């Protein structure tokens, strides 16, 4: 009788010890996990703070730029320059900038925006000249013999990368009489050309070079680049 009680008691004691051991290991594990978690959380917080600060700055710049462009457009439209209408304009521009500041400048590159604008303005007269030339060519095709018209679809791979330069090239091609951009798929342009000369003009790639120059893409040497740099070299000498 006593022996059974003793055995039972020892058994109980061992069980309690086992339980305690398990508990303590669990607690230790949990503690270790908690410290690791807090550490990683703290790291993440610090990273987020740095990243967040940079992101907020970029977003603020985009917001202000969108606001200024919208307000200029508002002043152009409005025509009433009294206090009431200007304040209405400020409210409306604030609303629109808040709603869509990330649309106008989806992937901004800071610093070279003015260069891009300047080069784009310089590009427009050249484009008009090309349009005039193609106009004459298409007029001759329309009036001349039929055999000169050879419609075909040409395909070329582009070196342009950003969406805005792809669109600028596509629209330049479409604006030029005789050629129409059908589609852009994975950096390949599908263009409908009305005659051989138009297609050959396009395949020389001058227009693409100029677009790449405007948006500063696809590193290549271009006459205008050399001319831009020349005064600096002169000053250094």
């Amino acid at each position: 009788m006593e022996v059974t009680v003793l055995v039972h008691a020892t058994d109980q004691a061992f069980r309690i010890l086992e339980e305690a051991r398990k508990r303590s290991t669990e607690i230790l594990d949990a503690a270790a996990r908690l410290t690791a978690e807090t550490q990683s959380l703290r790291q993440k917080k610090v990273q987020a703070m740095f990243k967040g600060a940079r992101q907020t700055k970029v977003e603020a710049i985009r917001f202000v730029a969108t606001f200024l462009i919208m307000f200029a457009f508002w002043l152009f439209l409005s025509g009433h320059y009294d206090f009431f209408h200007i304040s209405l304009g400020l409210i409306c521009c604030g609303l629109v900038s808040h709603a869509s500041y990330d649309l106008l400048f989806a992937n901004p590159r800071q610093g070279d925006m003015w260069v891009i604008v300047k080069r784009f303005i310089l590009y427009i007269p050249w484009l008009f000249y090309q349009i005039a030339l193609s106009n004459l060519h298409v007029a001759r095709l329309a009036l001349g013999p039929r055999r000169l018209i050879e419609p075909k679809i040409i395909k070329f791979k582009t070196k342009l990368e950003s969406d805005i330069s792809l669109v600028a090239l596509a629209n330049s091609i479409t604006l030029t009489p005789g050629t129409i951009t059908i589609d852009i798929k994975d950096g390949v342009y599908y263009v409908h050309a009305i005659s051989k000369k138009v297609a050959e003009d396009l395949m020389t790639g001058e227009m693409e070079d100029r677009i790449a120059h405007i948006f500063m893409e696809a590193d290549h040497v271009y006459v205008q680049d050399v001319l831009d740099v020349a005064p600096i070299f002169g000053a250094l000498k």
Partner: protein
Amino acid sequence: MMTKQSDDVIVKTLSRLLIPFMQIYALYVIAHGHYSPGGGFQGGVILAASLILLVITYGLDNTLRRMNEKLNVIMCSGGVFIYAGIGVLCLILGGNFLDYAKLSPLLGVGIAQARSLGILGVEVGVGMAVMAVMVSIFLDVATGGLPSVDALEKTSRDND
């Protein structure tokens, strides 16, 4: 179909550049409705068109992140409330429904000025209501009548 993003880079980029200008033009039409042609309805429709263009080109989830349905419903009823509120306010002040001249002591300006401000307020209300109703009709058509969250889940399932 409607809830997916367009994969045409030309359409996407151009609509991205165009939408802010559309929105400012819509607000201009609303805000100058008491001076020039246009007004609440036209401006509201242009505003709704900009959002519909966003749905067509950038997909439903992108649009709902900017403009969720709850806000849309609030604007829908809020616009009607502004319109009817201004009308009833004139009624309370002893005039007819939308008799803006009676607002002049409340606003502290002359009768002509009060009419102008009253019309502007009504147009803001109409613009909000029209925009919200147009967008909600379009969202209903685009999602096939499902609540938009369910529709998004369905498209993501279909894409998988």
